[in-house]
């Protein structure tokens, strides 16, 4: 009796091993699909994060010695917002094009060097921007320069490939000086302060 039942048991146990188990096949197909979905969704999510314009609130009531005109206020708001979007994209992708579009002078020199160094060391920086409260503190009498004081809520992640080396979330104070360029305001100075 024992000898007779043993071959049956062995036959049952061998079934899953020869790959004909439909449940295992379903799991494999599902896992492959899930992997495909994730591999597509992660870069998409990154792009969405990078393309989102930060929320910037600009207050110009205390600007001196010249009052900021309504048109100027709108263009400064637009261009400072674009500069932060460009900065995030440049540091996330180690690309210089977004910097050249929005920065000039000292700020461009510094950020360009930062991107080059990041690229050389295989690092990227992801900035998750939770918004800026910006106050215009100076507007030059000839209308050529405007200085801003910005309280930014930022989440900063330094990455080496896919692994996060550093992550923090903080309110950071920035001083920015924008000057008029050919068709927009460009950030000439951008400096964080304690």
């Amino acid at each position, binding site marked *: 009796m024992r000898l007779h039942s043993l071959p049956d048991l062995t036959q049952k146990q061998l079934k899953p091993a020869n790959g004909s188990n439909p449940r295992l096949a379903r799991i494999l197909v599902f896992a492959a699909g899930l992997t495909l979905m994730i591999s597509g969704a992660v870069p998409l999510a990154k792009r969405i994060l990078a393309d989102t314009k930060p929320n910037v609130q600009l207050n110009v009531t205390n600007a001196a010695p010249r009052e900021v005109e309504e048109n100027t206020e709108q263009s400064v708001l637009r261009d400072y917002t674009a500069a932060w979007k460009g900065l995030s994209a440049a540091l996330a992708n180690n690309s210089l094009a977004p910097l050249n579009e929005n920065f000039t002078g000292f700020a461009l020199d510094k950020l360009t060097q930062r991107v080059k*160094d990041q690229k050389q060391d295989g690092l990227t*920086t992801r900035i998750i921007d939770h918004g800026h409260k910006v106050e215009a503190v*100076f507007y*030059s009498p000839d209308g050529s320069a405007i200085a801003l004081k910005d309280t930014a809520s930022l989440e900063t992640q*330094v990455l080496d490939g896919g692994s996060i080396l550093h992550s923090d979330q903080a309110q950071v104070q920035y001083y920015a000086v924008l000057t008029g360029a050919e068709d927009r305001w460009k950030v000439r100075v951008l400096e964080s302060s*304690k």
Partner: protein
Amino acid sequence: MRRLVAIAITIAACWFAASRANGAEIRVPEKAVAGQDLSIATGGSGEGTLLLVGPGEVIKHKITLGQNAEIKGEELKHAGRWIAIVRGGSPQSQVFWVEPGKPANLSFLARPSRVPVNRPSVISGFVFTFDKFQNLVVDPTPITFTLSVGGTGASQNVTTKNGVAWVRSSSAKKAGSAQFVAKVGDVTVTRVVQQVASDPCNLRMHIASRNKDRVTVQTDPIRDCTGNPVPDGTIVTFIETDQTGRSVVDARIKKGIATAELPASSNAHITVASGVVLGNELNVGGGE
């Protein structure tokens, strides 16, 4: 016995994990200044890598964990928020701040470059203060602005706020090249503002000569209200009106006076003007 072994293994694993986690401990100084040496203390043992991610650069050093990492001043150029990361086992990181150094550069803009004399609050100048690495110095800094022409002038002391200071100044009564100077400590930046004569004052003309075809009119030396000669090249307009119509001559000032030749007429009315300033009028005719 098995339980004891399991407990021992768990304790050993925890101890190992804790030692690995502390292996790359990092301590940064509370205050760092751009251009000054910096010492960063690390914990643990073995080899590691120190990354300093700053506003305008990334510094990378191979270090021995448990020893201080020395960063030279010339590497630490940029003020602002830095992130120190030690890689050796599980990465550890810490945010620290670098302050700008002393003001060493001034970005000074003066407007306009050419201005009429004796006008109130017509000249403006503003200054941004930077250290030697072009970091904006946001701490209040006293700036001295001086505007002088020919050795006489006036000074104003202004303290920067948010890294910027500005002044408005009146132009002097005397024409000439004004030296507009901004000074902080030993750093001085000069801009030149050309102060030129204002509009003519008491514009007067007379008949210089006359014949049967032509009448020549000439102004007295043209000066502004503070006595500065109006620059050569300034346009003076003479208009002659008679029964046949109008004759208009735009003449440039040469050597301080303007001259025009107009057609002779038996009864003409001549006016003179420069910009918005009108001069005297002459009636020419008959035996005159």
